[in-house]
């Protein structure tokens, strides 16, 4: 905890990072959970118009995606 806070203090201000640091920071923020959650919603919608089993799979996927998104390390 103390290591983290001391690291944070040492970081330069957001608008003074070098190009390389900025590029790395942006790159590190990628996430597949938005894709996963929206795909799960599609499965739910298809399930509603086709079969309850597909609907059930979609709901499970939604729950997994929400939990995954929530627990993702930022």
């Amino acid at each position, binding site marked *: 905890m103390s290591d983290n806070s001391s690291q944070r203090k040492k970081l330069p201000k957001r*608008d003074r990072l070098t190009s390389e640091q900025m*590029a790395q920071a*942006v790159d590190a*923020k*990628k*996430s597949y959970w*938005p894709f996963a959650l*929206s795909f799960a919603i599609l499965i739910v919608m298809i399930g*509603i*118009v086709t079969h309850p089993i597909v609907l059930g799979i979609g709901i499970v996927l939604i729950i997994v995606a929400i939990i995954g998104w929530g627990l993702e390390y930022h």
Partner: protein
Amino acid sequence: MATRTIGEGVSLTRRKSFSETYIGGWIMTIDHKKIGIMYMITAFFFFLIGGTEALLVRTQLAVPDGKVLTAEIYNQVFTMHGTTMIFLFVMPMLTGFGNYVVPLMIGARDMAFPRLNAFGYWVVLFGGMFLSISFLFGQAPNAGWFNYAPLNELTTGCGATAVTCTPGLNTDFWALGILMLGVSSIAGSLNFVVTILRLRAPGMTINRMPLFTWMVLVTSFLLLFALPSVTAASILLLLDRHIGTHFFQAGAGGDPLLWQHLFWSFGHPEVYILILPAFGMISDILPVFSRKPIFGYTFVAWSGVAIGFLSFTVWAHHMFAVGLPLVAQAFFATSTTLIAIPTAVKVFNWIATIYGGKVRFTASMLFAVGFIAMFLIGGLNGVALAVVPFDYQVTDTYFVVSHLHYVLFGGTVFAVFGGIFYWFPKMSGRLLNERLGKAQFWLMLIGVNLTFFPMHILGLLGMPRRVYTYAGNLGWNDLNLMATIGAFIIAVSIMLFLWNFVITLRSGEKAGDDPWDAFTLEWDTSSPPKPYNFEVVPTVRSRRPFYDKKNPEIADWKTATH
């Protein structure tokens, strides 16, 4: 494989992670610029689908007693044309522009909620796929983009008087698809509101924001307040269809007009949702190519806010023919006429901006000027439709089809192409071919007028909208043929654009960072911009910060009071 140097002569080789692959980079991206581009490409794909549907409709109506489509397929095609163009082309296209341009314009490094931003895009893509696969089931939505009750119900009436309406999945696809796209719109709108209100560069006060940013902000509020009613309507409809409630069934104590009220209290703000960002684009393009600041910035900005407020007071002008009380008719006729005032203020300011300027007629400028002319026609016949007795005569005729297409095609689509020609160099680093762009503009202008102007006359002659064919002795033949020829001319102009797009990406002229000598901050970045947009967050002192930077001796902040 990815290689990384960790010391002198020492390097590590490891397998690339998924996010480092080309496809993974796009799927996992939360960069507003990449998401903006994905929005625009997706929207253009759906534009081609919606356009193909329009060509099918026009081919069917080219001659009397057309046999190209059956009545049922025609219903599906024209319904999906409207639904696709509104929800899957115009809205995502404008959101794409907003995503790409707004953070750059306001000096931000990304949207406020980048993951939510990515989520909004993927929901649009999957929502569009969901709506479109309805054709594979043979049950695409078929009750119009407004999906009126009780046609959208399974049955209506009771006992022996029960009538089958839409028993298939058609309406379910529509309602569920709209719910899905609504989720995306809410996510996107929240993101824009927070981004614009919280992430502006130092010194960029509300009254210094670029006008496109202004209009995206107003549009985002409109979406947040308008979407709940269509969401509620869609849920009530699904309950009617599958749980046995009767919200929209008059025979069981419900009210079909409730659908119209709920739908249009979303649907009319929606028209402004589709046009206000276009206003914003035009308000930023015209000054650059006229070499002048926008005339009457404050009026242009706040007239957009006024339009936003008034757009919630006009919905029942779509319903004059249903038998509204006289007081309601008078109110909605007045409010509809009133909304023409702030709109006319904008048109006046755009013309005054061009007047006396050193005008450069680039392809982008041509589309912007074409927008003003076409939108003016659509706006004026809209004011005509606000006159109740006239509306009685032409309601549900091709006059209305003409009106809405002059606004949405002559207006928004022209602005979209103006925006593409303007910002494409920033996005790709290359200039679209100007000669092809100008040819596209003139073809499109001819096509639009040949398609939609005759529809005024068809409407006045009494041709109802949504009919799949007509008899040959009604005097409508030549006008319908003209409209069909015009539609194919538009298609040729779109093909020309696609050709231009491909050859530009292959071997287009390098654009440089600021090809138009522009005024706003997005041009103060490389083309295309770095992932982090700005190495140093700019400080803003006027409404034209990049102009100030390039012309420090005559900077706006030295002379202007804002």
